């Protein structure tokens, strides 16, 4: 009961401040009365949940302590951690076997609860594994994902939301990369009502390589917000980010990205690119690219652009008899095509392409 009261207090608070600058958390969580676990499946079968680490009394006492600070500062990043802890003491844990692909789905059914899930994914040393994580939400979903990539291991992961009527989705990912490991992560959001992806990647060992990409399309009055933090703790490591988004109608999209290079991370190579296309005059785009570098022998870059559909391209297509709506759709799909091309799974690629262009491309 005590837990519920705290949750209620938090849900009623309006978070302000930089951390949630582009996402209205009050709106995101409005109307939710309590938090319950979301469904999680692996290859269509429910994934077993682990037991809580501490006993319940201790856990609730800890939550109270967090709740006090959180309520005092509702814009604190701890806020969502608190929600996750409050709702699910347990979480799923998955060790990916080398050479396999795991198809994981997390779903929040209709209702007025916040659905919460926690998932830990381990990729053992020297293993190469793939995963597709499909997210769908008919109400509100908070997913906490922790990914551990062992020494010399590699992971290709797509976090995919492509449902036609997805509501509110919050994902918080932390990825830890050990020496000589490699990660290719892609976040895809195809017009959910509201999605916010927070991705924190930490490179702990030399020779690690991170590719972090994002693709998002928003229409109506919907919002997609991607916030990334890439930390280089060790030298001779590399990271690159490419986030491309399109906003139609009155939609909003945001990208905030920080590359943080620690003093010991000499010879780091890091880049970040964010490109936004506004497909209407009332859509809005926000970008906040940031670099924080504490080492003196590194190569880092960032770039952010916001543009519109090229009227010359649009006219050329219309002159060939392609109606304006189709031409705009093809041009928008072409704009984010660069990110689609990086997705390593053909089936995922094909389904995204056909969603984007509105035509069945498998036949060509």
């Amino acid at each position, binding site marked *: 009961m005590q837990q519920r009261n705290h949750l209620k207090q938090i849900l009623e608070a309006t978070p302000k401040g930089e951390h949630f600058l582009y996402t209205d958390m009050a709106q995101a969580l409005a109307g939710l009365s309590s938090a319950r676990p979301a469904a999680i499946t692996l290859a269509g079968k429910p994934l077993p949940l682990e037991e809580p680490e501490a006993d319940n009394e201790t856990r609730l006492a800890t939550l109270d302590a967090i709740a006090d600070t959180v309520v005092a500062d509702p814009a604190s990043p701890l806020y969502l951690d608190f929600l996750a802890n409050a709702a699910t003491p347990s979480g799923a844990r998955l060790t990916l076997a080398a050479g396999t692909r795991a198809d994981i789905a997390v779903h929040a059914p209709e209702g007025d609860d916040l659905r919460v899930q926690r998932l830990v994914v381990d990729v053992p040393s020297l293993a190469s594994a793939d995963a597709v994580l499909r997210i769908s939400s008919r109400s509100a979903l908070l997913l906490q994902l922790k990914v551990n990539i062992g020494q010399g291991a590699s992971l290709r992961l797509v976090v995919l939301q492509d449902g036609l009527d997805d509501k509110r989705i919050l994902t918080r990912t932390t990825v830890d990369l050990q020496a000589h490991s490699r990660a290719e992560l892609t976040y895809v959001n195809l017009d959910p009502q509201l999605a916010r992806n927070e991705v924190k990647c930490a490179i702990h060992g030399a020779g690690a390589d991170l590719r972090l990409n994002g693709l998002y399309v928003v229409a109506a009055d919907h919002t997609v917000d991607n916030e990334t933090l890439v930390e280089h703790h060790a030298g001779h490591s590399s990271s690159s980010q490419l986030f491309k988004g399109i906003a139609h109608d009155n939609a909003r999209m945001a990208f905030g990205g920080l590359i943080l290079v620690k003093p010991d991370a000499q010879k780091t190579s890091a880049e970040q690119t964010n490109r936004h296309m506004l497909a209407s005059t009332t859509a809005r785009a926000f970008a906040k690219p940031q670099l924080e570098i504490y080492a003196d022998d590194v190569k880092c870059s960032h770039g952010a652009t916001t543009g519109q559909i090229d009227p010359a391209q649009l*006219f050329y*297509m219309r002159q*060939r008899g*392609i109606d*304006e709506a189709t031409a705009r759709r093809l041009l928008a799909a*072409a704009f984010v095509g660069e990110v689609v091309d990086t997705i390593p799974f053909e089936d995922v690629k094909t389904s995204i392409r056909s969603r984007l262009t509105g*035509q069945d491309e498998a*036949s*060509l």
Partner: protein
Amino acid sequence: MLSIKDLHATVDNKEILRGINLEVKPGETHAIMGPNGSGKSTLSAVLAGNPAYTVTAGSVTLNGKDLLAMKPEDRANEGVFLSFQYPVEIPGVSMANFMKAAVNGKRKYQGLDPLSASDFLKLMNEKKKLVEIDSKLTNRAVNEGFSGGEKKKNEIFQMAMLQPCLRILDETDSGLDIDALRIVANGVNKLKTPENATIVITHYQRLLDYIVPDFIHILYHGRIVMTADKSLALDLEKRGYDWIKEQFPD
């Protein structure tokens, strides 16, 4: 087929076309020549419906239908084809998808079902051979990284695919070497039928050796100031435009 009456048009509030009159009948080829800045490209853009241009007076009908009231895509589907002076690069859109959207856009306009994938590929291969276009070009993105000659050949390929009734070639010869010019002109001639008509906009007489016009019109200061047969092109090549400018001080 095409009837232009007293057409006036502006771009950025500057009047470029100042009363164009032109009748084009099926099977005819009309060349439009004139010094730089006389309004040649504006005329082609206005006929195609480029939204950057505003028509301030006059009328244009195509087969009796009011062309100026139509959206650019509807004009295209009624049979207006503009071969661009500078074909636009569209990275990320494959030629196959682009052509498929165009062909099926026209079929939809005509109330026909879309072509099946195999019929579409058959049509592409047939037209590729007809206009001597390299097969590899159609596997790439629209005009992306194409040479000047490849872009113009690609325009003719698209013309072959869409079979328009009114073909407007805007400075098709610019940026072409002699061999490419011959291939492009051959394509235009092969695709000529008694039912379609051609408007060739050019600076030079050279293209008209290959695409032989029935009429040559001189456009100057936004009006057609002279109409003659093909011998006029040779005259112009020798004498330039100065004698015309002198006749029509404005």
